[in-house]
């Protein structure tokens, strides 16, 4: 699950973001995209860079075939939908989206639904497949209102090398706008972008990679440590993951900006989150936004239209819960992530219930004044941070292992 930790990527595989090789590719890409005067040549150059970068992550013909199939298949579905899809009922589009999700789960977990899973007999690992499928869904669902739907733009969108590995999840319409115009923002943007990249390199390769040994994931046996150190390890682990992922995003966003593509943000100080909903509005924001636009909204609309008025709250709560499970399992199809999804889903449901029933009562009571106190805000944030940190345990240790650590945290 964590290829970097096992150093599963050999010297020939992968282009590490802190390598001189990658630096050279990035510099060349920026120069090309800022100096080539003819638009089509620039786009072709971008394609060359994208494919070059990709080649370091494709270990053989199998992933190449799978990727080609996904690209061509998605584009074809788009064409079919444009030509004949005008009168398709919603159910057809929904089925297509569901098929993409099923494809994603089957390919990422060859042991899922074994007799029926074709990837059990043909296991393939495709870099960034979770993100590729999202871009495919974006393209197919929105295809009618997208501009510049040529295959070159589509491919460059799908395998844009800065965001290939782990996003941020950019949308087609934003990408194609800059792909066509290569517009650069007015004013000096080079130095701020370079700083952004440097900040990312520090957060990821200096801070995260050095601090990770102190995080709970790396501790050999947590139960033998003193209680405060177990807690420290757990709290620190979330910080390390944050530094690692947001650092990568800084590098990628800074580089894309230099190349002329202002990619969307993925983080907004998640350590300030007051509750689970606030957390997901600050952490991996492009993921939350995608699920909101392509799962939550369509599903909620359907539910609100069909459900009986009195049941609406219950149904919407179920939709929130379902979306949280989907987000969790999208990360990885393990029982650990499933429980992570259950915990976050339960927290979301709890929050909804709190807002509907308890919150108005509190505001009216004498406790209401407390809500505006800064100290209360900080206590709430700390509690939320602790909660999130504990749920993250399930990513790595699975259900049993995480429960062991939680027991150690409360000295049982």
């Amino acid at each position, binding site marked *: 699950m964590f290829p970097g930790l096992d150093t599963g990527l050999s010297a020939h595989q992968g282009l590490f973001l802190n390598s001189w090789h990658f630096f050279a590719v990035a510099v060349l890409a920026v120069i090309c995209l800022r100096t080539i005067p003819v638009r089509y040549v620039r786009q072709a150059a971008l394609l060359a860079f994208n494919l070059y970068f990709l080649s370091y992550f494709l270990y053989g013909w199998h992933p190449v075939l799978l990727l080609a199939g996904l690209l061509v298949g998605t584009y074809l579905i788009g064409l079919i939908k444009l030509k004949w899809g005008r009168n398709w009922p919603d159910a057809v589009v929904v089925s297509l989206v569901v098929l993409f999700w099923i494809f994603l789960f089957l390919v990422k977990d060859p042991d899922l639904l074994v007799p029926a899973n074709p990837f059990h007999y043909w296991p393939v690992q495709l870099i960034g497949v979770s993100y590729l499928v999202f871009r495919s869904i974006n393209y197919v669902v929105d295809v*009618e209102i997208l501009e510049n739907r040529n295959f070159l733009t589509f491919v460059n969108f799908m395998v844009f090398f800065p965001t290939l590995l782990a996003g941020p999840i950019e949308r087609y319409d934003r990408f194609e706008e800059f792909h066509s115009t290569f517009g650069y923002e007015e004013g000096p943007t080079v130095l701020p972008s370079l700083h952004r990249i440097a900040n990312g390199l520090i957060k990821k390769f200096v801070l995260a990679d050095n601090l990770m040994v102190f995080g709970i994931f790396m501790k050999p046996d947590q139960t033998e440590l003193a209680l405060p150190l177990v807690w420290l390890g757990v709290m620190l682990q979330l910080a390390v993951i944050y530094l690692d992922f947001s650092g990568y995003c800084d590098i990628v966003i800074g580089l894309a900006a230099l190349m002329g593509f202002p990619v969307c943000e993925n983080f907004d100080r998640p350590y300030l989150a007051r509750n689970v909903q606030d957390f997901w509005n600050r952490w991996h924001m492009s993921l939350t936004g995608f699920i909101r636009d392509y799962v939550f909204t369509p599903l909620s609309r359907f539910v*609100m239209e069909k459900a009986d008025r009195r049941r609406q709250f219950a149904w919407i709560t179920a939709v929130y819960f379902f979306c949280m499970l989907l987000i969790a399992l999208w990360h990885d199809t393990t029982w650990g992530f499933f429980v992570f999804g259950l915990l976050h889903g339960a927290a979301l449901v709890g929050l909804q219930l709190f807002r509907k029933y308890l919150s108005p009562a509190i505001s009216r009571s004498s406790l209401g004044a407390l809500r505006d106190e800064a100290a209360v805000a900080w206590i709430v944030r700390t509690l939320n941070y602790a909660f999130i940190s504990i749920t993250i345990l399930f990513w790595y240790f699975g259900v049993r292992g995480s429960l062991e650590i939680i027991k150690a945290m409360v000295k049982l």
Partner: protein
Amino acid sequence: MLQENLQTIFRQVFEDDTLVINDEMTAKDVEKWDSLSHITLILEVEKFFGIKLKNSEIARLKRVGDLKKLIAKHKPDLA
């Protein structure tokens, strides 16, 4: 007409009779505006103006001004 009707809908959905909408307004400006009330808003708008909005169109709404443009697009006689 569009502005007034839309404002009425907003006031209803967010339970605030004093709410005044403008084109630049976003979800951040209204306290009760979250993913759920957003759906309610869309449904009320669809019901009131007798239109059906596509999910891809809804995903692109950033400000109230975008919503007004979208309604006008579906009901040109209103603009």
